[in-house]
């Protein structure tokens, strides 16, 4: 689209016949034949830059190709997963794990995935937003940067290490808490006993996932909180608002789309998180109780079984991956939709 503008009609006939080396010496003086034309200034300015045109074309072409490649990759993720998953859908239901077809196999682990992610978000979102507020508006200015750095480092801890920590440190400690919960609050369906002796339950998974999600939501919300126009904040304070009222009236409304997108990203991470679940949970059939052994998530199911799988089992696990892909795709698209709908709140642009 640059090229159209680069070549004015006037030059097309006259000066492009002249070799560029011959032209260069005269680039600063305005020649007579030029003065007679209409586009005097344009021509004399545009003329020497002709030399870089190929570079321009190549560069824009290559960067366009890179962008298109990304679309192609995402598209091919869907296609390849679909192709490799296809045998599962046509296979005899009795050959699928569980012997009752793919739906009976996948639904319990979808529910398990959603439960784990829900627990994680319920715990993580309020804490993460509060931590982000702490760093952006409450902590002493001089320390805020260091605190932010600490939280950033936490987002960087690999998931397998969180998993190992949940497996070896957290679960045994929570086992006693679960026993107490099952004993005293057992009438609530989610705390029905008998509680797991090892603590390797859905609730532990949810807590570990929450720990992993907190830094993500925090670092994104913090960025948004810091972008709040300080005029809004100062106006609120000048009207006599307390700090909390200022945050509620100026910071939170401004940051709402950012918080939503941060939470959705956290949800995506929690839905797809594999290693923490694979290490922490001792899987089993779908149960309502969060303190009993049982339940399974899609990602952990794949990770635990894929290395040894072959034949139809392999296709089955890829189909499960496809389901997970579709779920996260939907979550992300809803998130994008919410963000674009709330875009008018953002005063930044």
């Amino acid at each position, binding site marked *: 689209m640059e090229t159209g503008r680069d070549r004015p009609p006037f030059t097309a006939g006259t000066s492009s016949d002249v070799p560029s080396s011959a032209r260069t010496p005269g680039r600063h003086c305005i020649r007579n034949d030029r003065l007679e034309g209409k586009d005097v200034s344009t021509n004399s300015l545009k003329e020497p830059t002709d030399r870089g045109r190929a570079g321009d074309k190549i560069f824009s072409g290559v960067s366009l190709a*890179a962008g298109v490649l990304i679309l192609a990759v995402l598209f091919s*993720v869907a296609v390849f997963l679909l192709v490799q998953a296809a045998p599962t859908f046509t296979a005899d239901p009795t050959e699928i794990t569980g012997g009752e077809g793919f739906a009976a196999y996948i639904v319990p682990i979808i529910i398990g995935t959603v439960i784990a992610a829900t627990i994680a978000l319920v715990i993580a979102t309020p804490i993460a937003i*509060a931590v982000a507020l702490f760093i952006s508006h409450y902590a002493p200015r001089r320390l805020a940067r260091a605190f932010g750095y600490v939280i950033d*480092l936490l987002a960087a*801890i690999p998931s397998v290490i969180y998993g190992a920590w949940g497996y070896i440190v957290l679960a045994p400690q929570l086992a006693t808490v679960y026993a107490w919960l099952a004993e005293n609050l057992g009438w609530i369906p989610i705390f029905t006993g008998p509680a797991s002796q090892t603590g390797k339950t859905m609730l532990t998974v949810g807590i570990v996932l929450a720990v992993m999600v907190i830094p993500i939501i925090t670092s994104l919300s913090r960025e948004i909180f810091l972008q709040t126009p300080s005029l809004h904040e100062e106006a609120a304070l000048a009207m006599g608002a307390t700090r909390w009222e200022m945050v509620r009236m100026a910071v939170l409304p401004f940051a709402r789309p950012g918080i939503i997108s941060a939470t959705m990203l956290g949800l995506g991470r929690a839905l797809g998180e594999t290693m923490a679940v694979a*290490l922490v949970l001792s899987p089993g059939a779908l149960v309502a109780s969060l303190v009993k052994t049982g339940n399974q998530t899609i990602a952990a199911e794949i990770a635990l079984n894929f290395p040894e799988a072959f034949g139809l089992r392999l296709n089955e696990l890829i189909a499960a991956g496809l389901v997970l892909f579709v779920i996260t795709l939907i979550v992300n698209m809803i998130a994008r939709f919410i963000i674009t709908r709330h875009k008018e709140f953002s005063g930044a642009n």
Partner: protein
Amino acid sequence: MAANQTLQRRQSQLTRGRLPSYAVWVVLAASVVLGAALSALIGFSVVGWAVITAVVFVVTATIVTAVGEGERRAKDRLVTFLVYGAFLLALLPLVSVLWTVLERGIPGLSYNFLFTSMNGVTGAVDNASVENGTPVLGGAYHAVIGTLLITFWATLISVPIGLLTAVYLVEYGQGNRLARAITFFVDVMTGIPSIVAGLFAAALFALLFGPGTRTGFVAAVALSVLMIPVVVRSTEEMLKIVPNELREAAYALGVRKWRTITRVVIPTAISGIASGVTLSIARVIGETAPILVTAGFASSINWNVFSGWMGTLPTFIYYQILTPTSPTAPDPSTQRAWAAALLLILMVMLLNLGARLIASMFAPKTSR
């Protein structure tokens, strides 16, 4: 005289209805004592003491403020406590993770661990080392090599693609339909679960080279699916904040667009881009799930990413914990796992630190 009176009244107006500044500390001290007493009643533990103290303190301080300063200030104070509390609560697991990794990882981090592989280390070897009390044999050398090679290849694939895409989005696309589609799908790609990226690479190479193709390069492709969107997003943000005046100045001098981009725009943003790339490396270096399904698991050294299974640090940790080399004596395996975890965390921390350093070292000079 009259002026003096007004002055006095104004001063008292400013402090009227405020509790003295020591009030909160008094409440805190009382809560600590009360917390100790209450937790002693139900069986003393530090955790119980801390929890009771925190609850008592927040409730009492809020009520005291409500009585002394009014409802609005009480609400403000309550939120302040909750925000500080949330931060402390968030630090708790993080300190615990780091402490665990340090405490359990340091004993295993020896020269032997760093420079030998798991080749030939069997359950019998581990049993012998437990029985005789000899040092644990076997290490993570093969895994370190695997991690570095796979991450290197992933970076090699992702950075050019990510960088050029960001350039297209900011400099060429400028909000046309294709650019909007790319932005949208890059956002969607950030949300791809890591294991799905792994399955994609596995499925791709299964179609191309037959099922069960597992090499380091497949893992690198899987990781670059995760890495590209991160690189695109961070680079895009950095290119966007390059002031438009710089571009316009370059155009006004007759500089070609691609020269403007490579000579003006990218150098201005290079610190941010470099630190974004480093952070994206830090993100994928610890990924486990995609490697599990693409590179398999090896216990011996493999320098070739294009053939053979490859061990990496994350999968090493995973397998050492979940399936100890010797089922009857899992301690050596656990020790190796934590040492590997410490090594992995050190790598990630160094990369993060590196990103910070790059960002500050190559930052455009703004002060004059």
